[in-house]
């Protein structure tokens, strides 16, 4: 069993490397995800009108199996920090977990430095909003309300408390993109968020904001692996049907 898992990881790594080399030469050709197109517009608009962007990264620890979603959120945060580094109001990133908040600070700083605007970075733009799910949501709601936020992004691992943040954004009439890996949270965000992302769309967010060849390649790798899993499921069903397994 271990060998299959190792094989899958090695296969994905080789595929990612190989595809990223070819992606450098060709422009990306993806399906349109309206939420991410609107996000890109909202980011540009916030720089133009001097409003703030709000990014919540959720409450998952990177030490758990749920750590993938906040990593994807940090990737998105990095792109946003680079695109808004010269804005009058820096984006605010909050997390419901301390180490994630520290990484958010580091990511924001790195984004500013990459654009040559390291002196504009403010350490308080990466915050811990609370250390339990509901306290984190309660701590983040006043930021959406009071800090001139024009667009909010919930990208990470949330519970159903994400709906409270979506409601706060709705009350301020600001754009809200909601993406979570938790199934209950996805249902809550589908009902309450202006632009919800379902399932793996969360991991595509940074690639859609021009994050580079490796990000584009990772979407292709996901597609290839998904098709392989679909074929394996179909083959398993047929074998089961004819009684071979």
């Amino acid at each position, binding site marked *: 069993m271990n060998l299959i898992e190792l094989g899958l990881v090695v296969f994905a790594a080789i595929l990612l490397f190989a595809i990223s080399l070819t992606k450098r030469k060709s422009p990306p050709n993806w399906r349109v995800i309206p939420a991410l197109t609107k996000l890109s517009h909202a980011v540009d608009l916030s720089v133009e009108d001097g409003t703030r962007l709000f990014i919540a990264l959720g409450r998952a620890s990177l030490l758990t199996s749920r750590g993938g979603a906040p*990593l994807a959120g*940090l990737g998105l945060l990095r792109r946003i920090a680079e695109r808004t580094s010269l804005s009058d109001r820096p984006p605010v990133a909050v997390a419901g977990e*301390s*180490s994630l908040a520290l990484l958010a600070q580091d990511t924001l700083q790195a984004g500013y430095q990459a654009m040559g605007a390291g002196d504009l970075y403010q350490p308080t733009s990466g915050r811990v909003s609370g250390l339990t799910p509901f306290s984190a949501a309660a701590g983040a709601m006043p930021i959406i309300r009071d800090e001139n936020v024009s667009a909010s992004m919930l990208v990470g691992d949330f519970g159903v408390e994400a*709906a*409270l943040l979506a409601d706060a954004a709705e009350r301020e009439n600001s754009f809200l993109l909601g993406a979570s890996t938790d199934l209950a949270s996805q249902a809550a965000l589908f009902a309450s968020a202006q632009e919800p992302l379902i399932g793996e769309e969360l991991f595509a967010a940074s690639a859609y904001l021009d994050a580079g060849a490796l990000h584009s390649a*990772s979407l292709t790798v996901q597609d290839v692996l998904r098709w392989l899993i679909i074929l394996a499921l179909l083959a398993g069903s047929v074998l089961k049907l004819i009684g071979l397994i």
Partner: protein
Amino acid sequence: MRYVAAAIAIATGLIVLVGYFVPALASVQSILLNWTIILAGVAALVGVFNLISVHGDKVRRREKGSIYSAILLVSLFASFIFGIALGPDHPDMRLLVSAVIVPVEATLMALLTVTLLYASIRLLRRRNDLMSIVFLLTAVLMLAASATLPFIEISPLNDLVRPWIQNVLALGGARGILIGVALGTLTTGLRVLFGADRPYGGK
């Protein structure tokens, strides 16, 4: 310096990953994971200082809502001092949790019920498409099947429709979403191992 940080992070990530497949590396993996747990504990402390710094700033600048920040800081310091003096198992400290934190979180949960109901009502106004209609119809069907209704019992809903939606449609959809999330997590992890994503800083 940033190359050193990247090299350490990538090497550590690789050792931990390979440790799951190669038993010889399991002891090194275990040491690294123990270090990570200690660092995460320290990060929790730094997180509290971050909370104090952000809310202290709000109070100092007398920003909108700074009264709530002041209440937070006073409560935080009071709990810290009493926690140190009495110990976390003291009945008064337990009361702090059971009489303040639990009811407040339960209240937020209750608010969430109203928020989600209101969001569902607004859903068709916001996104008038097939998926929204299916979502709302399914929610109504599941509620009708699960709720204890006065005088009547709609047994076909409870006996046939609800199990079918739960065990066929919802379970299949949930598995599909989780497979997608797992693949996304895998490629995100690989990007970190390749050094393309550096959540630990660096250009």
